[in-house]
């Protein structure tokens, strides 16, 4: 076994077991927790006390940037090359509405996608948990709870025993 540990990984067969185990781990004083699941498990973020995600603010920022870019672009091009078409106004906000709306959505959607990847530190093709013996089932039908080695209460043998005690199907240590 490598000297450096990433953490301890415990396997559960249902989301309910995982939620119960997470709750017990928090009660036992573990704070540095993460879970790996095949689909989003409702309530897990609440029990683990994750901070609320901020993707919506990134999206809002993108929307404002998009609307601003679109309006600035349209006003500027008509300012730089004013063309009188049948006496219609040079700066008709109604005619600018479509492109402004489209760019608002475009910038906002792309900001959220890239913001999500950036906050999640993706792409990162290799990650310690991938070395877990049974981890490949996390994308299939198993639910994993991970106690990080950085947790103040983490102690390799004690944590493994604790995870075994709260009903894990299997437990293992994951090297860094």
């Amino acid at each position, binding site marked *: 076994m490598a000297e450096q540990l990433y953490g301890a990984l415990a396997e559960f067969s*249902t*989301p309910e077991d995982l939620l119960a185990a997470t709750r017990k781990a928090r009660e036992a004083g573990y704070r540095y927790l*993460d*879970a*790996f*699941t*095949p*689909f*989003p*498990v409702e309530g*897990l*973020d609440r029990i*683990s006390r*994750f901070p609320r*995600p901020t*993707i*919506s603010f990134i*999206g809002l920022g993108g929307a404002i940037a998009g609307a601003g870019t679109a309006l600035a*672009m*349209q006003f500027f*091009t*008509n300012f*730089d*090359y004013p*063309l009188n*078409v049948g006496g*219609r106004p040079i700066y*008709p906000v109604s*005619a*600018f509405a*479509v*492109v402004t*709306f*489209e*760019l608002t*959505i*475009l910038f*906002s*959607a*792309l900001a*959220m*996608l890239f*913001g*999500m*990847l950036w*906050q*999640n530190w993706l*792409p*990162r*093709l*290799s*990650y310690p*948990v*991938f070395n877990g013996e049974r981890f*490949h*089932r*996390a*994308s*299939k*039908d198993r639910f994993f709870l991970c106690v990080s080695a950085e947790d103040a209460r983490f102690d390799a043998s004690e944590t493994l025993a604790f995870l075994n005690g709260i009903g894990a199907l299997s437990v293992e240590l994951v090297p860094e």
Partner: protein
Amino acid sequence: MSEQSEILPTRQSMGGIAEQLTGIPLHFPADRRWVIAMTVASALLLLLIVSVVELFTRGVGIWGINIPVNWAFAIHNYVWWLGIGHAGTLISALLLLTGSEWRNSLNRFAETMTLFAVVCAGIYPILHLGRPWYVYWMLPYPATMGVWPQFRSPLEWDIWAVLTYLTVSLAFWYTGLIPDLAAARDRATRRGWQIFFGVAALGWRGSARHWQRWQQAYRLTAGLAVPLVVSVHSEVSLLFAAGQIPGWHSTIFPPYFVLGAAFSGFAVVSIIAVSLRSWFGLKNLVTDDHLDVLGVVLLATGLMTGYGYVFEVFDAIYSGEPHEIQTLVDRFAGAYAWTYWGAVIFNFIPLQALWLRRVRRSGWMLLLISASVVVGMWLERYMILVTSLYRDFLVSSWSHFTPTFWDWSTYFGTIGLFLVPFLIAIRLVPMISIFESKELLHEEKEEHQHG
């Protein structure tokens, strides 16, 4: 939850679903059918390439367009393809937000359909440009001529709308795909597949923190995609309605076009759903209940489109405008009356069979009715374009339009342009959302246990 939550049979296991769906790209089960379909699709794509080369060499004169019918197949098929694309976004985005469980088995291939239908739509305005190699003039770049694109022109709106729609659809599709690519990566045994899915999944590991951010991004993008769909097709119909041509200058156009788009799109989704589930044996995931819901949606959007037909007649008569009424009479009894009555017959007559539950739950019947709707909507777009243009205000400018060989070959070619990437996508990525199916299955099992 209502009884609708029983849409997936609860006997199957989560692991089984993952194996089954990742198995389609990893151990392709329908080789022969795929090769046959791919051969036909490639032939059509080749036809498109030949047609486009001919077009770029000789110009748009090879089409049957003239003055006054200066927009025909190009815009007609643009609207038709774009409309087909819309159902994909509506299924994935609108139903995600409203929490409809039946979405999960359909959304992935519906989104894939959207992507390639929008590509087919997008090439048409470019082909229709007299000098397509100047398409970049649509974008604002500091040209030495000192001229900027004209943002007050509806045609300029098109390029922004279509490019935005394509990009956002792609972003939404890929965001939803990442967890499934990770599932395929973990099942892959051959080195090539491991690398392909490994890179494509971006190292996704299903971490709870990741899911949390991912879910927020996915839902918010869906929230943006719904008004985007409505805006894109409204924008297309605004190009018509903003003109003064009789038959186009109508306020019903934006909703009428959007609903017609959803109508034709849901028809294509039904065709793909029925075909894929019989090709790959997916009856446990795309169940008869799914076909039932698709049938109901098809019927509902069809009836709403029917309302558009009625209102169009009312609108013309109520306006009292002689040219509007003339166009109406031309639609009923003019040279192109066959497109009007063809649209009415193909769109609405077989559709009425969907009132019967037995018909909705039969794959074959749904397939035939959907095919009829696709033809009907194609005729409708033809009718809207040509019957308005061929006789406008001045008798001296009346003319007829007859599609030439190159009109038809370009149109059939775009079907190849749609099918080739779609068939490739079937081989490369899971065509049904794996994690969402598992999530739904889990919820249903819960429901089952706790009553």
